[in-house]
């Protein structure tokens, strides 16, 4: 029933030298454990252009978090490299901010909402006046300017994740990495947060890499979706989401094109689960 296949690359799409903001090249990660080696990520290559909003989607256990941690500089890859603005990533770069899935554990419970948002700026030596302005702006952008004095644990899950997003936004990153940020919030809150991400992205022009296991979410949010295979992970497919720029929870999701894309991604994920792997990627591994 697919009327038109999406524009896609088998394997990850790359950009010409100098145009990519974030490049991942032949990334491989093997965990050495007492029970033997586990190859979590086999070979990943893709680029993010400046200002893109890209979703990474893959079956559970496909090494999404591992990949994200390698990109964020929180974990060393076994081979291959990540470059941000041409600079090789060896530790967490200044221009990156991460929003974790476990908002309850990533926000510091001993700090109030504003203090949580302010801390990275304070640590970076941003002057007080500037700091105040950035924090206020970020809290306003996520719709939380009314609870600055609360502690995070006094807020609902969705609001806590807003605080974490505000903290990331206030840090003024060039790249915003999000690791399944909405996996632990209820459906209604999730929809609101998805729209929040779209609006923040548009307003600030930041580049976003959004990891999720939810197919609908990846299509609704992304301008591009990178589908990962099951572990050991390679890029299964890299597709362009040609939906209108203005997204709306009801309208966009009921577009026939949305359904087509959803079917396409779903089929790819099913293939990935069954162990099908695109040839290009396999030959790339072989060489």
């Amino acid at each position, binding site marked *: 029933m697919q009327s038109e296949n999406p524009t896609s690359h088998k394997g990850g799409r790359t950009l010409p030298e100098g145009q990519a903001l974030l490049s991942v090249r032949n990334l491989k990660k093997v*965990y050495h*454990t007492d029970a033997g080696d586990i190859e979590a990520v086999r070979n990943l290559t893709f680029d993010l252009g400046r200002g893109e909003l890209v979703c990474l989607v893959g079956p559970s256990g496909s090494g999404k978090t591992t990949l994200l941690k390698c990109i964020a500089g929180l974990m060393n890859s076994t081979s291959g490299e990540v470059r941000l603005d041409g600079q090789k990533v060896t530790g967490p770069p200044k221009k990156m901010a991460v929003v974790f899935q476990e908002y309850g554990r990533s926000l510091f419970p001993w700090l109030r909402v504003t203090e949580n948002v302010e801390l990275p700026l304070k640590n970076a030596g941003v002057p007080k006046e500037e700091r105040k302005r950035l924090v206020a702006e970020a809290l306003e952008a996520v719709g939380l300017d009314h609870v600055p004095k609360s502690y995070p644990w006094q807020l609902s899950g969705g609001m806590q994740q807003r605080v974490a997003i505000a903290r990331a936004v206030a840090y003024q990153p060039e790249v915003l990495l999000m690791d*399944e940020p909405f*996996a632990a919030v209820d459906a209604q809150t999730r929809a609101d947060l998805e729209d929040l991400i779209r609006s923040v992205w548009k307003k600030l022009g930041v580049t976003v890499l959004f990891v999720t*296991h*939810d197919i*609908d979410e990846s299509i609704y949010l992304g301008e591009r979706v990178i589908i990962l295979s099951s572990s050991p992970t390679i890029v299964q497919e890299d597709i362009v989401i040609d939906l209108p720029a203005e997204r709306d929870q009801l309208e966009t999701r009921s577009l026939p094109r949305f359904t087509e894309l959803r079917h396409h991604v779903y089929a790819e994920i099913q293939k990935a689960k069954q162990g099908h792997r695109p040839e290009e990627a396999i030959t790339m591994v072989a060489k």
Partner: protein
Amino acid sequence: MTQATEPSTRAAAKAKASRLPSKGLPKWVLGLIGIVVFLGFWELMPALGVVQAKYLPPASEVIAALATDLGLTAFWVAVGDTMAAWAIGLAIAVAAALVLGLVIGMSPFLRRFTNSTIEFLRPIPSVALIPLAVLLFGIKIESSLLLIVYACFWQVLIQVLYGVADVDNVAMQTARSYGFSYAQRVRDVVFPTMLPYLMTGIRLAASVALILAITAELLIGSPGLGKEIALAQSGGAISGMYALILATGFLGVAINGVTRVVEKRVLSWHPSVRGEATA
């Protein structure tokens, strides 16, 4: 929606972390290295003249003295005296605290009525009672018992009160509506909930009891290892004194180990322990 939830719990994260590569030497080897370094340091201090050997004999000499002690009946009698005071004192304190804790804890009136008194008596240091103990009992074992019971009683009582307060109201009302008697409610509803708290109290009290047993022996002269330490010190048998001190340390380690094992055994069915085991 197509979703496959991935485990994101703390336990899973920890399990993952423990599967990560363990770099270098196993833990017990490192611990052994620590012990050897410590003993080596101790051995060298008097040899290098950092301290005088008559005040801190080298480790080898002290360990030799301890080995000699281990073959002496007098040493084992002293250990037996200390452990007897420890065990009797702990048992009295636990029994008293358990009964009183249950009675007070199960009555909201008594809980409020006794609160101020408990909060006032609890922080009073047991050693304040030393002169009283001497006056009343002299150097008999009762002196040790007075100090031990006083200190341990509060440790256990507080835990029992916490435990009873933790009893689920719904469970209690259910029991009541099924016509459970007071004794049945205590046995089937309150006691199981309170047990982990009681065990925590006993574990804390067990080490406190040893501290006060040794204190009483050291200061008052009631029979036991502490008295032997005081005698060795005043008699100038410095290696012997250090050997006895080592022995009290090992006693402490043994008590900590045993109470931890017992706690785990008794509570093996309890979620708080099972959770700990998986994490």
